[in-house]
Protein backbone atom coordinates (compact mmCIF):
# COMPACT_ATOMS: atom_id res chain seq x y z
CA UNK A 1 0.00 0.00 0.00
CA UNK A 2 1.45 3.36 -0.96
CA UNK A 3 1.75 6.14 1.56
CA UNK A 4 -0.89 8.29 -0.07
CA UNK A 5 -3.48 5.56 -0.07
CA UNK A 6 -2.62 4.77 3.54
CA UNK A 7 -3.24 8.40 4.38
CA UNK A 8 -6.51 8.38 2.51
CA UNK A 9 -7.59 5.29 4.41
CA UNK A 10 -6.64 6.84 7.71
CA UNK A 11 -8.45 10.02 6.80
CA UNK A 12 -11.62 8.20 5.89
CA UNK A 13 -11.46 6.08 9.01
CA UNK A 14 -10.83 9.13 11.14
CA UNK A 15 -14.41 10.13 10.50
CA UNK A 16 -15.83 6.69 10.91
CA UNK A 17 -13.41 4.32 12.62
CA UNK A 18 -14.33 0.74 11.96
CA UNK A 19 -13.95 -2.25 14.20
CA UNK A 20 -14.52 -5.97 14.39
CA UNK A 21 -16.27 -7.86 17.11
CA UNK A 22 -16.80 -11.53 17.77
CA UNK A 23 -19.77 -13.18 19.39
CA UNK A 24 -20.56 -16.26 21.43
CA UNK A 25 -22.21 -17.96 18.48
CA UNK A 26 -19.06 -17.64 16.39
CA UNK A 27 -20.12 -14.65 14.34
CA UNK A 28 -17.47 -12.08 13.47
CA UNK A 29 -18.93 -8.71 12.55
CA UNK A 30 -17.52 -5.56 11.01
CA UNK A 31 -19.08 -2.29 12.10
CA UNK A 32 -18.50 1.46 12.09
CA UNK A 33 -19.84 4.73 13.45
CA UNK A 34 -22.49 5.14 10.84
CA UNK A 35 -24.46 2.13 11.91
CA UNK A 36 -23.15 -0.26 9.30
CA UNK A 37 -22.82 -3.69 10.79
CA UNK A 38 -22.20 -6.76 8.69
CA UNK A 39 -21.37 -10.32 9.61
CA UNK A 40 -18.15 -11.13 7.79
CA UNK A 41 -17.45 -14.60 9.02
CA UNK A 42 -19.33 -17.43 10.72
CA UNK A 43 -17.11 -19.71 12.78
CA UNK A 44 -18.12 -23.03 14.25
CA UNK A 45 -17.77 -22.10 17.91
CA UNK A 46 -17.66 -19.18 20.32
CA UNK A 47 -15.08 -16.45 19.64
CA UNK A 48 -12.84 -16.33 22.71
CA UNK A 49 -10.20 -13.91 21.55
CA UNK A 50 -9.83 -11.67 18.60
CA UNK A 51 -6.70 -9.74 17.77
CA UNK A 52 -5.76 -7.47 14.91
CA UNK A 53 -2.37 -8.03 13.31
CA UNK A 54 -1.98 -4.51 12.04
CA UNK A 55 1.16 -4.76 9.90
CA UNK A 56 -0.34 -7.59 7.84
CA UNK A 57 -3.96 -6.41 8.09
CA UNK A 58 -5.04 -9.74 9.50
CA UNK A 59 -7.49 -10.75 12.16
CA UNK A 60 -6.37 -13.55 14.42
CA UNK A 61 -9.23 -15.38 16.10
CA UNK A 62 -9.18 -18.17 18.66
CA UNK A 63 -12.44 -20.00 19.19
CA UNK A 64 -13.66 -22.21 22.01
CA UNK A 65 -12.80 -25.32 20.01
CA UNK A 66 -9.16 -24.08 20.08
CA UNK A 67 -9.13 -23.34 16.40
CA UNK A 68 -6.98 -20.36 15.48
CA UNK A 69 -8.20 -18.71 12.32
CA UNK A 70 -6.40 -15.94 10.44
CA UNK A 71 -8.46 -13.71 8.22
CA UNK A 72 -7.01 -11.29 5.71
CA UNK A 73 -8.84 -7.96 5.99
CA UNK A 74 -9.56 -6.11 2.75
CA UNK A 75 -9.93 -2.35 2.40
CA UNK A 76 -13.71 -2.60 2.48
CA UNK A 77 -13.77 -4.73 5.61
CA UNK A 78 -14.43 -8.01 3.86
CA UNK A 79 -12.26 -10.90 4.98
CA UNK A 80 -10.74 -13.94 3.37
CA UNK A 81 -9.56 -16.89 5.45
CA UNK A 82 -5.83 -17.48 5.07
CA UNK A 83 -4.94 -19.99 7.73
CA UNK A 84 -6.56 -22.36 10.19
CA UNK A 85 -4.58 -24.07 12.95
CA UNK A 86 -5.79 -26.31 15.74
CA UNK A 87 -4.09 -25.37 18.99
CA UNK A 88 -3.01 -27.94 21.50
CA UNK A 89 -3.47 -26.86 25.09
CA UNK A 90 -3.37 -29.07 28.17
CA UNK A 91 -5.96 -28.83 30.91
CA UNK A 92 -9.46 -27.48 30.69
CA UNK A 93 -8.79 -24.71 28.18
CA UNK A 94 -11.21 -26.37 25.79
CA UNK A 95 -14.01 -25.69 28.30
CA UNK A 96 -12.95 -22.31 29.59
CA UNK A 97 -11.57 -20.99 26.35
CA UNK A 98 -8.36 -19.14 25.63
CA UNK A 99 -9.21 -15.58 26.57
CA UNK A 100 -5.94 -14.18 27.89
CA UNK A 101 -3.94 -13.56 24.78
CA UNK A 102 -1.68 -10.58 24.08
CA UNK A 103 0.85 -9.64 21.44
CA UNK A 104 4.37 -10.36 22.68
CA UNK A 105 5.92 -8.85 19.57
CA UNK A 106 5.21 -8.46 15.89
CA UNK A 107 3.53 -11.67 14.80
CA UNK A 108 4.09 -13.37 18.16
CA UNK A 109 1.21 -14.14 20.50
CA UNK A 110 1.40 -15.10 24.16
CA UNK A 111 -1.39 -16.81 26.01
CA UNK A 112 -2.14 -17.74 29.59
CA UNK A 113 -4.56 -20.63 29.45
CA UNK A 114 -4.70 -22.15 32.91
CA UNK A 115 -1.42 -24.05 32.76
CA UNK A 116 1.60 -23.39 34.95
CA UNK A 117 3.27 -21.58 32.12
CA UNK A 118 2.76 -19.02 29.45
CA UNK A 119 2.68 -20.17 25.87
Amino acid sequence: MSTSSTRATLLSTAYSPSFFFGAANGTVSYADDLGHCTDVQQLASSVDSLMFYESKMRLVIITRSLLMTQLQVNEDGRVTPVMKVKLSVAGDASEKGVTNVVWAGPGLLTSACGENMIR
Partner: protein
Amino acid sequence: MSGSTLFSDFRCHPPSGGAAEVLASSWCTVAPVLAVATSANQVVFYADEGVSREDAVINSSANFMKGGKPPTPTNLQWQPKTRAIAIGWSSGKITFHSYNPAPPPPSNGTTPNAQDATVPARHGTNEATPPLTTIATNTSIHTSPITFLLWNPTGTRLVTGDSSGVCAVWKAEKNGLVSTIQYHKNVSTQIRNTQATH
Protein backbone atom coordinates in the same frame (compact mmCIF):
# COMPACT_ATOMS: atom_id res chain seq x y z
CA MET B 1 13.14 -8.37 21.01
CA SER B 2 16.43 -7.66 22.69
CA GLY B 3 17.69 -6.49 26.04
CA SER B 4 16.90 -7.85 29.44
CA THR B 5 13.63 -7.63 31.29
CA LEU B 6 13.36 -7.01 34.98
CA PHE B 7 10.48 -8.69 36.74
CA SER B 8 9.57 -7.31 40.12
CA ASP B 9 6.92 -8.69 42.39
CA PHE B 10 4.85 -6.07 44.21
CA ARG B 11 1.83 -7.10 46.21
CA CYS B 12 -1.19 -4.89 45.81
CA HIS B 13 -3.42 -4.81 48.86
CA PRO B 14 -6.93 -3.59 48.21
CA PRO B 15 -7.92 -0.64 50.40
CA SER B 16 -10.99 -2.55 51.58
CA GLY B 17 -8.72 -5.07 53.27
CA GLY B 18 -8.79 -8.79 52.81
CA ALA B 19 -8.43 -10.42 49.44
CA ALA B 20 -10.20 -9.57 46.24
CA GLU B 21 -10.00 -11.14 42.86
CA VAL B 22 -8.57 -9.01 40.07
CA LEU B 23 -11.09 -8.90 37.23
CA ALA B 24 -9.42 -6.45 34.87
CA SER B 25 -6.54 -4.01 34.85
CA SER B 26 -5.26 -1.24 32.63
CA TRP B 27 -2.15 0.94 32.59
CA CYS B 28 -2.58 4.62 31.95
CA THR B 29 -0.69 5.60 28.80
CA VAL B 30 0.53 8.97 30.08
CA ALA B 31 1.18 8.33 33.77
CA PRO B 32 2.50 5.41 35.81
CA VAL B 33 -0.92 4.50 37.14
CA LEU B 34 -2.50 1.08 37.06
CA ALA B 35 -6.26 0.80 37.42
CA VAL B 36 -7.51 -2.51 38.77
CA ALA B 37 -11.10 -3.76 38.84
CA THR B 38 -11.65 -6.12 41.76
CA SER B 39 -14.38 -8.50 42.83
CA ALA B 40 -14.87 -6.29 45.92
CA ASN B 41 -16.94 -4.04 43.60
CA GLN B 42 -14.19 -1.46 43.47
CA VAL B 43 -11.80 0.06 41.01
CA VAL B 44 -8.55 0.91 42.75
CA PHE B 45 -5.53 2.78 41.48
CA TYR B 46 -1.91 1.90 42.00
CA ALA B 47 1.22 3.82 41.28
CA ASP B 48 4.12 1.85 39.88
CA GLU B 49 5.82 -0.30 42.53
CA GLY B 50 2.39 -1.34 43.77
CA VAL B 51 1.66 1.64 45.99
CA SER B 52 -2.09 1.98 46.44
CA ARG B 53 -3.55 5.43 45.81
CA GLU B 54 -5.89 5.45 48.74
CA ASP B 55 -7.29 8.82 47.79
CA ALA B 56 -8.80 7.37 44.65
CA VAL B 57 -11.21 4.45 44.81
CA ILE B 58 -14.27 4.06 42.64
CA ASN B 59 -16.90 2.26 44.63
CA SER B 60 -19.90 0.79 42.91
CA SER B 61 -22.12 0.95 45.95
CA ALA B 62 -21.60 4.69 46.39
CA ASN B 63 -24.17 5.63 43.80
CA PHE B 64 -26.12 2.41 43.66
CA MET B 65 -29.70 2.28 44.79
CA LYS B 66 -30.54 0.27 47.87
CA GLY B 67 -31.40 -3.41 47.51
CA GLY B 68 -29.92 -5.88 45.12
CA LYS B 69 -26.31 -6.74 44.63
CA PRO B 70 -23.92 -3.89 43.92
CA PRO B 71 -22.48 -4.14 40.42
CA THR B 72 -18.97 -5.40 39.83
CA PRO B 73 -16.58 -3.63 37.47
CA THR B 74 -16.10 -6.02 34.57
CA ASN B 75 -13.97 -4.11 32.10
CA LEU B 76 -11.93 -0.97 32.15
CA GLN B 77 -9.54 0.85 29.88
CA TRP B 78 -7.76 4.19 30.05
CA GLN B 79 -8.49 6.50 27.19
CA PRO B 80 -5.29 6.63 25.12
CA LYS B 81 -3.17 9.76 25.62
CA THR B 82 -5.28 11.08 28.50
CA ARG B 83 -5.86 10.55 32.20
CA ALA B 84 -9.45 9.48 31.70
CA ILE B 85 -10.73 5.98 32.20
CA ALA B 86 -13.86 4.20 31.01
CA ILE B 87 -15.31 1.45 33.18
CA GLY B 88 -17.96 -1.13 32.33
CA TRP B 89 -19.99 -2.71 35.14
CA SER B 90 -21.93 -5.94 35.57
CA SER B 91 -25.13 -3.89 35.72
CA GLY B 92 -24.49 -2.61 32.20
CA LYS B 93 -23.50 0.82 33.48
CA ILE B 94 -20.72 2.64 31.66
CA THR B 95 -18.85 5.26 33.64
CA PHE B 96 -16.15 7.65 32.54
CA HIS B 97 -13.82 9.26 35.04
CA SER B 98 -10.89 11.57 34.95
CA TYR B 99 -8.03 10.90 37.31
CA ASN B 100 -5.71 13.75 38.24
CA PRO B 101 -3.89 12.90 41.41
CA ALA B 102 -2.50 15.82 43.31
CA PRO B 103 1.29 15.74 43.34
CA PRO B 104 2.62 14.72 46.73
CA PRO B 105 2.84 17.87 48.85
CA PRO B 106 6.44 18.99 49.15
CA SER B 107 7.75 20.63 52.28
CA ASN B 108 7.04 24.12 51.04
CA GLY B 109 5.04 25.28 48.05
CA THR B 110 4.26 23.14 45.05
CA THR B 111 6.56 21.85 42.38
CA PRO B 112 4.70 21.16 39.19
CA ASN B 113 7.42 18.81 38.00
CA ALA B 114 7.04 16.47 40.95
CA GLN B 115 6.40 12.89 39.91
CA ASP B 116 3.23 11.49 41.36
CA ALA B 117 4.67 8.03 41.66
CA THR B 118 5.66 8.42 45.28
CA VAL B 119 3.74 7.34 48.32
CA PRO B 120 0.83 9.65 49.12
CA ALA B 121 1.96 9.61 52.72
CA ARG B 122 0.68 12.97 53.89
CA HIS B 123 -1.63 14.95 51.74
CA GLY B 124 -3.62 17.33 53.80
CA THR B 125 -3.06 20.44 51.76
CA ASN B 126 -4.58 19.36 48.46
CA GLU B 127 -7.64 17.74 49.98
CA ALA B 128 -9.91 20.28 48.31
CA THR B 129 -9.58 18.83 44.84
CA PRO B 130 -10.44 15.15 44.71
CA PRO B 131 -8.24 13.33 42.22
CA LEU B 132 -11.19 11.52 40.71
CA THR B 133 -14.06 13.16 38.95
CA THR B 134 -16.87 11.33 37.26
CA ILE B 135 -17.35 12.82 33.83
CA ALA B 136 -20.19 10.70 32.56
CA THR B 137 -22.43 7.83 33.60
CA ASN B 138 -24.78 5.95 31.33
CA THR B 139 -27.17 3.21 32.34
CA SER B 140 -29.60 3.32 29.43
CA ILE B 141 -27.69 1.69 26.58
CA HIS B 142 -26.58 -1.53 28.20
CA THR B 143 -28.74 -3.48 30.62
CA SER B 144 -26.68 -6.67 30.77
CA PRO B 145 -23.14 -7.23 32.09
CA ILE B 146 -20.50 -5.52 29.97
CA THR B 147 -18.34 -8.08 28.19
CA PHE B 148 -15.92 -5.79 26.44
CA LEU B 149 -14.83 -2.20 26.37
CA LEU B 150 -12.21 -0.88 23.99
CA TRP B 151 -10.87 2.50 22.88
CA ASN B 152 -9.60 3.06 19.39
CA PRO B 153 -5.87 3.85 19.33
CA THR B 154 -6.41 7.59 18.96
CA GLY B 155 -8.87 7.74 21.84
CA THR B 156 -11.70 9.27 19.85
CA ARG B 157 -14.10 6.33 20.02
CA LEU B 158 -15.09 3.80 22.63
CA VAL B 159 -16.78 0.52 21.74
CA THR B 160 -18.69 -1.43 24.37
CA GLY B 161 -20.62 -4.67 24.26
CA ASP B 162 -22.77 -6.61 26.67
CA SER B 163 -23.88 -10.18 27.24
CA SER B 164 -27.27 -9.69 25.58
CA GLY B 165 -25.67 -8.76 22.26
CA VAL B 166 -25.78 -4.98 22.29
CA CYS B 167 -22.74 -3.21 20.90
CA ALA B 168 -22.42 0.55 21.25
CA VAL B 169 -20.06 3.15 19.85
CA TRP B 170 -19.31 6.21 21.95
CA LYS B 171 -17.67 9.40 20.86
CA ALA B 172 -15.25 11.18 23.14
CA GLU B 173 -16.05 14.89 23.02
CA LYS B 174 -13.55 17.67 23.56
CA ASN B 175 -14.88 18.36 27.05
CA GLY B 176 -14.40 14.72 27.92
CA LEU B 177 -17.99 13.61 27.65
CA VAL B 178 -18.91 10.54 25.69
CA SER B 179 -22.15 10.22 23.83
CA THR B 180 -23.62 7.38 21.87
CA ILE B 181 -23.29 7.46 18.15
CA GLN B 182 -24.82 4.23 17.13
CA TYR B 183 -25.62 0.88 18.50
CA HIS B 184 -26.11 -2.42 16.87
CA LYS B 185 -28.58 -4.81 18.36
CA ASN B 186 -27.91 -8.44 17.82
CA VAL B 187 -30.02 -9.92 20.58
CA SER B 188 -29.50 -13.59 19.90
CA THR B 189 -25.91 -13.66 20.91
CA GLN B 190 -23.41 -12.62 23.50
CA ILE B 191 -20.71 -10.31 22.27
CA ARG B 192 -17.34 -11.49 23.40
CA ASN B 193 -14.49 -9.59 21.99
CA THR B 194 -13.63 -6.69 19.83
CA GLN B 195 -10.74 -5.07 18.09
CA ALA B 196 -10.55 -1.65 16.54
CA THR B 197 -8.83 -1.57 13.21
CA HIS B 198 -7.77 2.07 13.37
